[in-house]
């Protein structure tokens, strides 16, 4: 079965020669839709996190705002919007204002490259993986700027921790990405998804994929600053870390991008290792594949992403956090060597064609 991939950018391109105004409207609508999606996803994620955390901990979580607290996130959002916004007197005002925007923009830019279903992807670049890796680096810039411009020692410490941590773990994450890129033979995200129509990379590569997936999950959790790697904002250590001096709207930007980064990570992990929107196919067993195709691809994507998000939340509500030197040791002495070895092994696999359902 072949999938007809059509991105929103392509559709806009199709429209452009005929009616530029319609195309412009289309672009506008897309921007609105992405913003709406981001907002809704963020609110849902925050609510889900609070509810799931509560049930991990033998309690019930938000209950009193709407049925079982479903409107809790909306209340929080409106409150944060209407809250006073403080720029400390000694802060670097411009950078202080810019930082959360940068952090949010980095997340938003990754969002447009995610293939959520064959027809639901804003832009499908031929260097998609590279683009995602590059643009997600903007987030750390926002954090660094925010911590530095606040003129607060705790913020600075948090920002430096975040900077060191994210940049270090990006290496491992990229190495894990490269494994999939090697196997798929393309940097295009939709191409990677389509390369998994005989099976997901997590199991097709005799363990290499699994190892890469594990590394990617660990490195990714570290990149989005979540427990057990939440050193940048570890409450008990650095009060609130890099966003200590942020309030109101700008804090909500950080807050939202933190949760959406989790979505981005889960989406990337499912795209690369779990086939993205590709249903569970095993080789060329048409019967199984046909049954699996009954579910629409968008739903497959949503299910996989949800599962990974749940996994990340599960990590967070179980583990204590690492110390800063242990964090670095884990990256440079454990993950990185394993990642390199894994990359070499998978390169060998690719060259010899030694993996399941090689073409």
């Amino acid at each position, binding site marked *: 079965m072949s999938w007809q991939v059509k991105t929103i950018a392509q559709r806009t391109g199709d429209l452009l020669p005929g009616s530029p105004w319609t195309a412009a409207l289309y672009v506008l609508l897309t921007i609105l839709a992405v913003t709406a999606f981001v907002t809704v996803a963020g609110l849902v994620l925050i609510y889900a996190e609070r509810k799931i955390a509560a049930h991990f901990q*033998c309690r019930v979580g938000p209950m009193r705002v709407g049925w079982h607290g479903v409107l809790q996130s909306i209340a929080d959002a409106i409150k944060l919007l209407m809250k006073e916004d403080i720029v400390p007197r000694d802060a670097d005002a411009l950078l202080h204002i810019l930082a959360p925007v940068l952090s949010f923009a980095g997340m938003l830019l990754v969002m447009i490259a995610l293939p959520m279903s064959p027809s639901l992807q804003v832009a499908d670049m031929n260097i998609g993986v590279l683009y995602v890796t590059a643009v997600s680096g903007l987030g750390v810039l926002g954090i660094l700027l925010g911590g530095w411009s606040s003129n607060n020692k705790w913020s600075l*410490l948090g920002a430096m921790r975040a900077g060191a941590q994210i940049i270090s773990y990006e290496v491992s994450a990229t190495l894990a990405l490269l494994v999939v890129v090697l196997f798929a033979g393309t940097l295009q995200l939709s191409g990677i998804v389509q390369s998994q129509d005989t099976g997901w990379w997590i199991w097709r590569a005799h363990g290499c994929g699994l190892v890469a997936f594990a590394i990617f999950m660990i490195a990714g959790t570290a990149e989005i600053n979540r*427990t057990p790697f939440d050193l940048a904002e570890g409450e*008990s250590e650095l009060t609130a870390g890099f966003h200590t001096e942020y309030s109101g709207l700008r804090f909500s930007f950080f807050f939202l991008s933190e949760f959406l980064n989790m979505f981005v990570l889960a989406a990337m992990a499912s795209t690369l290792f779990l086939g993205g929107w590709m249903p569970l196919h095993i080789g060329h067993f048409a019967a199984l594949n046909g049954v699996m195709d009954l579910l629409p691809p968008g739903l497959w994507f949503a299910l996989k992403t949800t599962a990974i998000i749940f996994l990340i939340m599960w990590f967070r509500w*179980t583990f204590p*956090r690492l*110390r800063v030197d242990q964090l670095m040791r884990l990256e440079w002495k454990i993950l990185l060597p394993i990642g390199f070895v894994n990359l070499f092994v998978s390169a060998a696999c690719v060259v010899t064609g030694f993996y399941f359902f090689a073409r």
Partner: protein
Amino acid sequence: MSVHVSTLQARISGESTASSPLSTEEYFVNMGPQHPSTHGVLRLVLRLDGETVREVVPVLGYIHRGIEKMGEHGNYRQFVHLVDRMDYLSALANNWAVTMVVEKAAKMETNERIEAIRTLVCELQRIQSHLLWWGVFGMDLGGFTPFFYGLRDREQICDIFEKTIGARLTMNYIQPGGVMFDIHPEFVKDVKAFLSYLKPKLVEYDALLTENVIIQERLRGIGRLSAARAIALGATGPVLRASGVAHDLRKSEPYGLYAQVDFDVPVGTDGDCWDRYWVRMEEIRQSIRIIEQLIDNIPEGKTFLVKPAAKIKVPAGIHYSHLETARGVLGVLLVSNGKESPYRIHCRTPNFNNLWCIGEMATGGRIGDLVAMLSSIDIVVPDIDR
């Protein structure tokens, strides 16, 4: 004569000794008075070199309320309720400490039942305090879930206390001459139910936190305190025992009914954060043992041998007695001049001395280690400041 009175400003603007070959710049950070991991209003001035702590200067007094001065103006019964607010997690032991010194000085009689009740509720509170500590310890290390599990089980003890004592935290239960109420008819049943509930939970705690590799890695070899240094720094309680000194007043100078029960004093070997953690976890188990031995045979008797009078007269002189709270040795020094209120009353609080160890432990560690150490000595700030 070289008496030189200094100030905090002078203290922290002093020497800067960068020992690293790299030319790094040291800087001061105020941790507290409002900081999530200082458990109240403790201020630590940290001299940092990057993430490394070069020096810790604790600054106290953000909750110094002058309890000792107030004690001089009230009678003994009033002072009992004041010490509730010192180490509020061992309020009963605090009550007992004052009660003990007053009873010893004024030669007040008690009976076995009173002592048994006192021992029981104190041990329950030791468990309660350690459960809270366990939860907060997990939270300080970044894991939130232990906090909820620890406090969930602590609430069960709160329920038992509420039934018998009528308060959840500041009890004012152990009075000179007796205990304020007799135990609730359901006390024995509740305590037994709680113990059988807690035992499997302890196994769960171990699986969740104790055996977790991150905890192991974070606590091993951190904040090491040798036995000799621990004694010299005046540490008591689990902090001292973790360093390998089996100094427990329940064993060495038994009070209450501790002489009649069989229990062990867990001691550590290295005196690091891990040992302190483990000693406390083990103390919960020992407390369970003590309660199990006592709960079935509480002797009969009155809870006040004589009707409690508002005022008690204590013969003139210096009286001192001490006992073991969940955090260490709490001593009450009572100087009386024969009147209804003490001439001078002084509390030797365990946290005061235990905190003093932090300066020695923390030097050279990371900020994250500092938080772990602070949590592992389990301070209650109002107990330090009084």
